[in-house]
C-alpha cells in the first residue's frame, strides 16, 4: 500500500517560488490494483508519480511506501551513450542482482523484443524502442506496484497488448499506477482511477467514473 498524506508540492521557478502544483493530497493506493491517473496537461500527474516513486520529495506532507515500488518508468532512467544491455546491467546492479545478471538480461532482451538493437546505444532508439526497454526493465524485477508515466503511448499495438497481458497475468501479485492520455489504454490496463484537478486528487473505484468526471471538468 502507498500512503500519500496531506502532500503539497510546488517547484522553484526562474521567478521565485511557483504556484502549488499539488495542494493537500490524501490517497491510499492499495497493492494489486491497477490505477489510472487522469488529468489535463500540467495538472501534476507526473509530479505525483515522482513523489510516489521516491525520486522527489513533497514540499509538505509525506509519502509512505509500504511495499516495493518501481521507479517511474518513462521519466529518464536510460543513459543515451550506453547500449540497452549496459543500461539493463546498471539497473540490475543497482537493485542488487549482480548474481543472477544473466537471467535478468535474458528476460529483458526477450520481453523488449529489441533483438540486435539491444547492443546499440540507447540514443539511437526510437521512442517506441525506448519504452519497450523501459517496460521490460521494470518487469524484470518483482515489484508490488509498478509506476508508468506514458510509457505505453509510444509502443505499437502488439507491444501494448503484450504489456497489458503481462499486468493482467500478475494482477494477484502486483499493481500498477499509470498515466496515459488515451482512454482506450486506460480502460485496457486499469480498474480504478484518480482524477487530478486543480491541485486536488479524487479517487474513483471504477475507471469509467473517473473518465466521466474528467470530461465533466471540461465544461467548467
Amino acid at each position: 500500500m502507498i500512503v500519500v498524506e496531506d502532500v503539497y508540492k510546488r517547484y522553484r521557478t526562474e521567478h521565485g517560488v511557483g504556484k502549488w502544483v499539488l495542494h493537500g493530497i490524501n490517497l491510499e493506493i492499495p497493492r494489486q490494483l491497477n490505477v489510472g491517473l487522469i488529468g489535463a496537461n500540467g495538472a501534476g500527474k507526473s509530479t505525483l508519480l515522482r513523489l510516489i516513486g521516491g525520486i522527489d520529495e513533497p514540499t509538505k506532507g509525506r509519502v509512505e511506501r509500504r511495499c516495493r515500488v518501481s521507479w517511474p518508468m518513462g521519466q529518464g532512467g536510460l543513459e543515451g551513450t550506453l547500449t540497452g544491455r549496459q543500461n539493463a546491467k546498471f539497473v540490475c546492479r543497482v537493485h542488487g542482482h549482480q548474481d543472477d545478471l544473466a537471467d535478468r538480461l535474458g528476460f529483458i532482451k526477450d520481453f523488449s523484443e529489441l533483438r540486435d538493437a539491444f547492443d546499440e546505444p540507447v540514443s539511437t532508439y526510437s521512442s517506441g524502442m525506448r519504452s519497450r526497454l523501459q517496460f521490460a526493465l521494470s518487469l524484470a524485477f518483482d515489484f508490488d506496484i509498478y509506476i508508468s508515466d506514458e510509457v505505453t503511448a509510444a509502443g505499437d499495438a502488439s507491444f501494448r497488448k503484450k504489456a497489458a497481458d503481462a499486468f493482467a497475468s500478475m494482477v494477484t501479485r502486483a499493481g500498477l499506477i499509470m498515466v496515459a492520455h488515451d482512454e482506450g489504454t486506460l480502460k485496457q490496463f486499469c480498474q480504478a482511477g484518480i482524477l487530478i484537478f486543480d491541485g486536488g486528487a479524487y479517487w474513483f473505484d471504477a475507471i469509467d467514473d473517473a473518465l466521466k468526471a474528467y470530461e465533466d471538468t471540461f465544461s467548467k
Partner: protein
Amino acid sequence: MLNTARNPLSVTTSVWQAIFLREALDRLFDMRGAWFWLLIEPVLHIGFIAFVFSAIRVRTVANSDTFIWITVGMLAFFLFRRTSIQVMYAADCNRPLFAYRQVKPFDAAIVRAALEALLMILATMMILAISALLGHEVLPADPLMVVWVALGLWLFGIGYGLVASVLMALVPETEHILKLLMMPLYLVSGVVWPLMSIPQPYRDVLMFNPVAHGLELVRQGFTSYYHAVPGVSVAYLYAWVVGSVFLGMVLYRRFSRQLVMK
C-alpha cells in the same frame, strides 16, 4: 528475494559498483581508443613541458632535478584538478540515472572521484616508469609523505568539486567564475614556476592557496634535499580538506533535490 528489504549499506555498495562500472565504461570506451588518449594525454603534456624546461632552461630547481620537479608537480596538480572537475559534473552527467531512487548525486560524485584516482595512479606509474628509463631518480625519498599529501590533494579536489557543483546548481553563473579561477590556478600554484623565486610579500599571498602547499610537499617527499617554500605545511592542506569536504557534504545533504532537478 526482494521480500526482505536490503540494508542501506548493501544498497549503497551495489549502487557504487553499478555507477563505477557505468562511469568506467563511459570514460574508457566511449570512443575508439578512449582509454589510450586518457593515459597518453597527461604523458604527452607533462613530457613536453618537462622536456622544454629541463633541456632548454635549467637542470635543477632549488636542488631538485627539474625533470622530476615538473613531472611530480604536474601529476599532483592534475590529480587535484581532474578530480575536482569530475566531481563538479558528476550530477550533470548522471542525471537520467537519478530516476532510480537508490541512486543519489553523492554516490556519483564519490565514485567518479575514486575512478579518477585510479586513472591518475595508472598515469603516474606510467610517467614515472618512463622517467626512470630516461635516467631520472624517480623513487620518492619519503613515500609516506607523498601518499599522505597526494591523498590530501585528492580529498581537496572532492571537497572543492562538491561545493562547486552545489553552487553551480543554485546559481548557474558561478560556473563561469569557477572556470576563470581554475585557469590561473595552474600558474599560481607553482606548477611550472618555483614559488621560491617569487619575492615577498607576494609569496605569502600565493601560499594561501592550499594546492601550492600540496605541490611543494609532494616535491619535498620525492627529493629530500629540495628547498621547499618555508612554511609549507601538511596541516594547512588538511585544514582545507576538512573544511571543504565538510561544507560540500552539508551542501549536498541540504540541496540534493536541486542537484537532481533541472
